[in-house]
């Protein structure tokens, strides 16, 4: 890091009253004149307090800020459950074609055929990939996809007058969005434990399922990094009890092209396109969480969906009249359209064979990495299991011996230029890392990662302080999270000047 003076300022601290990026000032109107038709009481009198900076200051500030991020474009980023694979620049460019960027969401069908054609094709492709009857693209992330799916389950039971089903089963290892979603949809959450080998405890499941069961939300492969081997039995148990099966598709990358949730008996699912379909995460979104449904749930899909007129070949949004059982709309327009366009590009470039290879090589990379780490003496959470696209290692033994925690190890890894795997998730494995290399990383990178881990373990054994106080080479040292929550500082408080 250079000894720069202005390096850690906020954009507000670079502000100076009366400065502006003048090329961006598009008019020279007088407020009082222009707003004469608006009563004074409804007009703003207070200062707005936005920064007053030049265009160069903005460009320099945010360019320099960006340099403080790790990112796929710079670093190996094996964040478990997040599928940080390469985000094709071609997809970004295609989604940025002016025709797509400038299309207004309420544009008439006459000026929407290009966009709608892509969306129609994407619906079909995702249905084929997942083995579902129909797909709605509209949910804006995984969690909203879950909401749509669970709401569809609810709507289905209600449509049959089956109002007693008030419980949603969720495995203990599930991602937090699953129980949170079930509650948002009005369900009571009943947790199902996972057994020692990472599978759902079938006996427990049988004990908990019943006429009160609306359904089961399952991630498969699970967040334990293993494939749910009893899936067919599980499906049967739940279905026999009249419940429905929800598939959390966040981990689809592990099996994409190799096995399909629809074939496993799932009734409804969501996909995380910002994982499996390589759309960029953007430092926290946007995502896209399309939902797919089996034949019995297809009618309940959220809208709008795109239909093609068989005769003219023209595309249009389905009208509400055509989909009376739909759970309706989850966003003002049709969700994160630009993310969908990117996913469409990706799916088209991959095609049938490419889609199959995703799961194949995601699994190969994860299993190879797991095996290398096993051989290097790291503790696997499920040593007897295959890795899927990810796997878990635990630092519990190391922690007991040296006091160096999984978090310390993660922070130290940053010094080596690798992003840390997911830490402390799933919660049931103590001091764990969930490691997901993805299929787009090469062998040399995996080997370099193993080498770094071995080195850091040496450091933990012989110089634990070094690891406990890591990172040492980043723009900031270890940050105080407790202080952040205690002395809440969410908004910079300096009196606004304009």
């Amino acid at each position, binding site marked *: 890091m250079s000894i720069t003076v202005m390096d850690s300022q906020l954009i507000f601290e670079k502000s100076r009253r009366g400065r502006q990026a003048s090329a961006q000032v598009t008019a020279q109107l007088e407020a009082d004149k222009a707003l004469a038709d608006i009563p004074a*009481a*409804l007009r703003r009198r207070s200062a707005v307090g936005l920064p007053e900076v030049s265009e160069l200051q903005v460009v320099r500030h945010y360019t320099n800020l960006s340099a403080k991020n790790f990112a796929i474009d710079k670093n190996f980023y094996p964040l478990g459950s997040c599928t940080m694979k390469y985000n094709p620049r071609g997809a970004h460019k295609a989604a940025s074609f002016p025709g797509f960027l400038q299309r207004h969401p309420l544009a008439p069908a006459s*000026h929407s055929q290009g966009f709608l054609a892509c969306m129609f094709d994407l619906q079909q492709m995702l249905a084929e990939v997942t083995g579902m009857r129909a797909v709605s693209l509209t949910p804006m992330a995984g969690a*909203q996809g879950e909401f749509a799916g669970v709401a569809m389950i609810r709507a289905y039971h209600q449509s049959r007058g089956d109002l007693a089903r008030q419980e949603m089963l969720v495995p203990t290892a599930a991602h937090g969005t699953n129980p949170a979603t079930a509650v948002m949809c009005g369900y009571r959450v009943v947790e199902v434990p996972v057994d020692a080998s990472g599978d759902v405890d079938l006996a427990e499941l049988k004990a908990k399922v019943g006429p009160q069961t609306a359904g089961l939300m399952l991630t498969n492969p699970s967040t334990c990094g293993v494939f749910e081997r009893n899936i067919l039995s599980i499906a049967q148990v739940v279905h026999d009890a009249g419940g429905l099966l929800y598939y959390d598709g966040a981990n689809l990358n592990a099996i994409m092209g190799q096995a399909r949730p629809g074939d496993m008996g799932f009734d409804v699912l969501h996909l995380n396109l910002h994982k499996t379909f390589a759309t960029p995460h953007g430092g926290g979104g*946007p995502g896209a969480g399309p939902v797919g449904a089996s034949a019995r749930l297809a009618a309940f899909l959220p809208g709008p969906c795109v239909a093609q007129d068989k005769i003219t070949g023209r595309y249009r949004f389905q009208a509400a009249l055509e989909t009376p059982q739909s759970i309706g709309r989850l966003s003002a*327009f049709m969700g994160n359209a630009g*993310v969908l366009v990117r996913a469409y590009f990706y799916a088209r470039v991959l095609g049938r064979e490419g889609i199959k290879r995703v799961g194949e090589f995601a699994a190969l990379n994860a299993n190879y990495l797991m095996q290398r780490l096993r051989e290097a003496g790291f503790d696997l959470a499920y040593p007897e299991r295959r890795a899927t696209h990810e796997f878990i290692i635990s630092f519990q033994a190391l922690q007991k011996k040296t006091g160096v925690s999984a978090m310390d190890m993660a922070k130290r890894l940053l010094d080596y230029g690798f992003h840390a795997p997911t830490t402390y998730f799933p919660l049931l494995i103590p001091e764990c890392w969930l490691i997901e290399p993805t299929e787009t990383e090469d062998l040399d990178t995996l080997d370099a990662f193993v080498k770094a881990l071995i080195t850091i373990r040496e450091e933990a054994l012989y110089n634990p302080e070094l690891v406990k106080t890591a990172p040492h080479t980043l723009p900031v040292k270890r940050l105080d999270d407790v202080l952040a929550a205690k002395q809440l500082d*969410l908004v910079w408080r300096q009196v606004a000047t304009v």
Partner: protein
Amino acid sequence: MPYIPHTQEDTAQMLDQLALSQTQDLFDEIPLSLRSPSLQNLLVGESEMQVMRQMQQRADLDRYQLSFLGAGSYHHHIPAAVWDLVGRGEFLTAYTPYQAEASQGTLQVIYEYQTMMARLTAMPVANASLYDGASALAEAILMAVRANRQTHAKNILMPDSVHPLYREVCQRLTAAQDVVLHALPFNPLTGQIEQAVLMQFVDMDVAAVVVASPNVFGVIEEVHALTNWAHQQQALMIAVVNPISLVVLVPPGEWGEKGADIAVGEGQPLGVPVASGGPYFGFMCAQQQWIRQMPGRLVGRTLDRHGKPGFTLTLQAREQHILRSKATSNICTNQGLLVTAATVYMSLLGPEGLKQVALASHTNRQQLVAQLQTKGFEILFSGPSFHELVVRLPVAVEPVLDHLAQQGILAGVALSPWFEQFPNCLLMCTTEVHTVEDLDQLVQQLAQAVAKIAAVPVRAAELFGV
């Protein structure tokens, strides 16, 4: 193998390490019956060049010359620097900033964003974004229900002048939690909420009142009176606002005597292209006291081991990954990149630039109203308005829109699918991107189209059909 780097030797070496003979063996824990689906309905993969060309051709189908569409998504000029910066791989391809030390770029951006939104709305705190304006409103309603300890009832007053698509989304997202949305009619002359009707709700336990201003017609509501009334009723006030309007209109934090409790809205006008409706972002600001009920991520400023300031996600104990079924919301991935765009946009525009955008948008509306009136068209709603307007045509709207679309002009949104009581009405929007010539061309073409349709009213749809 697109985007997969393995050579045959790599694969062989890796399988060797695993003592496997083929990659298929990696899937031996999957029941055999499930393995290797044919995927026959997928096309064969094509190169970037081929797919790009096809998509370019498709995208070109959707181009037009002029657009006056608004209704929740607005055409503003986006400075070139915005997406050049936002598109940098460091912002684009980072995950949610869980490892704070390796994510100071994104985290500082969000902290700056939170500050900007708080200042723009004159509210004390802001979160790091929700999906879009509509879902942000739904989350605000759920938050208000949680926050309002004065009542256990889940009654929400939801004016008809709130964007109908927002109302639909709120209905969808809140119904399972037993929230009841009570409609509030608007005055058909002013386009504002009919305050007299509020009397009906004086005895109801109301958790929150929603007010959108400008509302779906672009009309500015009597926000002070409405806010004071809500507070008298022990109800929370939820403001739905257009961020661009806030540089010229009284911000939610200054509504009534105490200010709105929660302010939400669609962030798209702040540097995000209209792009078929997304990705956009919903913003949410609130009074300090409600912060622990807020959904979504929050970034806080803290110190590192050496006492240097830095940024980190905070108050995560509200969120699904910690609280699980007790979380404030299920939201996880949100709209980080769009927030980055908004932050850069607001920095580039600054208070003066943003004010000029608002003033030009508004001035163009005045201009358009005057020109339409000159041509004899009736403008609905006498309430003060911001950058949108409703005009009544003497003929049906659809053929007129079709006719104009054929000239490459997207003139507005037909109102009757949302408001049956307003047939022949068109919702139009002006912004700073429109020139005097654009307005002239619009009005001229509109008048011509109306004249034509009026002349052949019967078969109009066929004549100018889609």
